[in-house]
């Protein structure tokens, strides 16, 4: 079919800046969808607000572009109503974990079958480069001219602690791994969280002397290592990539079917 079949050419060109990583995420996602062989009518994409969230408009699925931070709450309503649909929820880092933090942890806890994709560029891009909860201590942003003193979240640890049954991380440099992970995440029956480190040369890069988009991607290559690898053992400061959690647990829509069975027993 080709990934091109999944896009709405009518709405191009997209609004992402030159060098933005989000297009790479979109590319990986479409290849994952194609590899699985999902039908466009069976996919609902629910996004929030921010640069990342505009991905939904460009894709030829049922697309719901919602409110800042609330994608997972809208997605829960769609999925519970139509459990047979495949739910994809791409979000930004501030979107998913700052304003949407509460919805994020509770979606993890419920283990409702959908794939949350955190496109983590460590900055609020749409509003012009303010620090996010994933920017990290010591970074600079348009709201941290004297250096950011906010520590950051680790998406993987947080999702794991909150109960997500599939948790993974990759980067825009590792397009093959990113595609494979998204494929596994979509196929996983339960709540999947995939963090994808994505570059924002326009704001995060510029404010933190990150260089060009390719310089930033180069860092994704040199500053990360496969999960449990020798490189990581030798240099503990490297960020691990791979599938951290992949376990079976009762899925929420399925559990709700049992609620219905108990409610209708003998009726």
């Amino acid at each position, binding site marked *: 079919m080709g990934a091109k079949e999944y896009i709405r050419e009518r709405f191009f060109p997209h609004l992402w800046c030159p060098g933005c990583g989000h297009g790479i995420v979109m590319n990986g996602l479409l290849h994952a969808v194609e590899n699985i062989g999902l039908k466009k009518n069976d996919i609902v994409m629910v996004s929030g607000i921010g640069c990342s969230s505009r991905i939904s408009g460009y894709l030829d699925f049922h697309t719901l572009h919602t409110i800042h931070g609330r994608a997972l709450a*809208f997605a829960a309503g769609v999925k519970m109503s139509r459990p047979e649909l495949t739910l994809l929820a791409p979000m930004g880092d501030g979107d998913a974990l700052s304003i949407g933090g509460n919805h994020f942890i509770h979606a993890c806890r419920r283990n409702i079958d959908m794939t949350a994709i955190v496109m983590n560029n460590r900055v609020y891009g749409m509003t012009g480069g303010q620090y996010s909860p994933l920017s990290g201590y010591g970074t600079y942003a348009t709201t941290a001219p004297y250096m950011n003193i906010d520590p950051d979240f680790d998406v993987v640890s947080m999702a794991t602690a909150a109960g997500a049954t599939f948790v993974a991380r990759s980067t825009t440099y590792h397009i093959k791994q990113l595609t494979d992970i998204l494929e596994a995440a979509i196929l996983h029956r339960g709540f999947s969280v995939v963090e994808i480190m994505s570059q924002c040369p326009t704001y995060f890069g510029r404010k933190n002397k990150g260089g060009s988009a390719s310089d930033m991607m180069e860092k994704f290559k040199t500053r990360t290592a496969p999960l449990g690898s020798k490189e990581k053992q030798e240099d503990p400061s490297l960020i691990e990539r791979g599938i951290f959690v992949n376990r079976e647990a009762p899925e929420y829509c399925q559990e709700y079917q049992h609620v219905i069975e108990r409610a*209708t027993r003998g009726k």
Partner: protein
Amino acid sequence: MGGQLKFVQGNEACVEGALYAGLGFFAGYPITPSTEIAELLSARLPERRGIFMQMEDEIASICAIIGASLTGNKSMTATSGPGFSLMQEGLGFAVMAEIPCVIVDVQRGGPSTGLATKLSQGDVNQARWGTHGDHAIIALTASNHQDVFSITVDAFNFAETYRTPVILLFDEVLGHMRERLEIPLPGKLPLVERLKTSLPEGVDYHPYLPREDGRLPMSDFGGIHRYNVTGLFHDMWGFPSEDPKVVYGLMRHLTDKIEHHVDDLTRYREYYTEDAETLLISYGSSARSALHVVMNRRQRGERLGLLELQTLWPFPSALVREKAKNARYVVVVEMNMGQVLQSVKSAVERPDKVSLANQVDGTLITPTTILNILRIIQGRGV
């Protein structure tokens, strides 16, 4: 006639009305004095294979019902003032994206946590203007459980007809008081089902291109037409647009589709308004006390009348103007600092003859209190 008789709380009457209307999905968060609605639906919805979800907060609750509605499910949430405040952004989204849904606000005292277990009617203007930006809205209320039932059915019908969120503004006394309810037999009250597009698969479907009558046929998410839904100003495909023509066209459409149908949307009851020298205007539980005063004084030959509003928004200005035309005194009875009072003053020919009889201490205004205030307004002393 011939329906099932029950002795219920107002919250239960609302539940019965919602189920009668075809509710398929409820999401909510516990809050007094609306919690019974969630509790009852957690038992009743699964029995009919419907969905009940208790969400992490009220923000998530309204978002979930909007998502569910998009798949074709009639959806509702219920809350009270503090939760209603949290729902304002979701409410605005439903207005903008034109997603049918019903939001019940069983009002309690505010602002803030206020009076959790006591009543007020302080959210009338929040229902109108709580979410940011220009918009039209539908808000309904009732004063007895039979009317709570039927106005809840109306709320679902209006939501589907006008593709909009509809707010039900009840209050603590109404929610918790028990009285008789007769549940009509199926088919007795008309139900509006969702208008769906008849376009076949493969034809370019324009989800936001209104028909000549202003209505927008929908296509369920997960169905044969894929389209975009957004809270941004959007074109006929639902794609974000800042084109001034598109922005203006959508703003006009969102306003006109409701403001042009005030007659269809207006529900009210009237008692002795024809020759009333003093016209009371009230709604919700305070209308019960107002009605008591009217019935009582009529027996003594006083020309008192009551206009009980059930549609608060869009405000039925023409109706109020007409009914107040011949009255010497117009007295708005409500349990807030004069929220409907302002709308009544704007509606009538002579605002100077409109007065407020209110009570804002968390307890129900009594007929005696209303009568005492009336005597002062009429210049007769208590």
